[in-house]
């Protein structure tokens, strides 16, 4: 197993924060999708209708999977999913920045919509996930 899968932990995220995330899920999906479509680095990719459709689906599924894996403390399962998604998107010529940007968008959305519930621990987990994704993107680029 990837060592970073072992170090990623969701144990500090409170049940109330997870419930708040679940309540705001639809808003988060919309905000993350908007974030991706505003990214300059993704503009030419998402100008393609089919790739735009895939991007929307990715955000929905990633959000569902993030919620399930945080709720049941399954970081390794989320890492496994992201590893699969990276290969899937690469073969469809998505830029390596897509997943890190999707995670950034989610971090922004969580910060915006979960302010009262306390979003810091979810944002910290997303920051670690993003760092891992950036590392993976660098490896591919190397």
């Amino acid at each position, binding site marked *: 197993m990837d060592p970073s899968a072992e170090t990623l932990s969701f144990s500090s995220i409170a049940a109330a924060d997870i419930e708040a995330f679940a309540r705001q899920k639809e808003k988060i999906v919309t905000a993350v999708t908007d974030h991706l479509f505003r990214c300059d680095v993704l503009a030419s990719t998402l100008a393609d209708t089919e790739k735009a459709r895939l991007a929307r689906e990715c955000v929905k599924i990633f959000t*569902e*999977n993030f919620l399930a894996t945080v709720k*049941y403390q399954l970081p390794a399962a989320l890492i496994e999913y992201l590893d699969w998604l990276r290969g899937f998107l690469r073969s469809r010529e998505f830029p390596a920045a897509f997943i890190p940007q999707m995670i950034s968008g989610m971090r922004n959305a969580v910060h915006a919509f979960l302010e009262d519930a306390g979003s810091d621990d979810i944002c910290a987990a997303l920051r670690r996930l993003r760092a891992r994704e950036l590392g993976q993107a660098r490896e591919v680029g190397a």
Partner: protein
Amino acid sequence: MIIQEQLRLFVESLRAGDRRRCFMLVREWEQQGLPNELLYNDILIPALVQFGDHWEKNEQGIVEEHVASQVVRQILAYKAVTMEPEATLGRTAMVGCVPDEHHDLASLFMANALEEAGWRVVHYGSSVPVHDIVQAVGHYKPDLLCLTMKSLSCLDATLQLLEQLRATHAGVKVMIGGISQPSMRSILAPHVDVFADSLTHGVQAAGDLA
């Protein structure tokens, strides 16, 4: 003909979208005495895996993958109609997907394989909510509930189902196939009697549970 050659021929016919040729091959191998277990494990399932891999790598479109799934679905339906189980166990298995799971081919394979092993099978497929599965367990009174699961996002509803089942029908054995992640298995383990690692293992494990 060796099995690898049979697999190659079947995949080639699927790639061409030639379902008649696929059906003819299956009939031909049936007449030659190819056991269903080999047909499922060494031809149909590996062929589907190949199509899934090619779709994942963008080497073929989603329509080709759906064509392959539909052909296999028809073959399994044919086998379900024509198969003659060797013996009857006098046990009932209810087979289908966990709630929110839409990938139901694995459950079709399992339904056929259990029926061939002598189980009375009730197959409900996919897209059935928690409440209705629990109610159906009360209606059909199965000895075994055999569930298939592929998507992470089904975990929540699956746990709800299992908790309700244990509260209302504690005697029903539960088997789940399709989950390889140890951490996911550990979440479900308190409610599950056995995790099936493969079709063959699932049939054997079901027999042991009975």
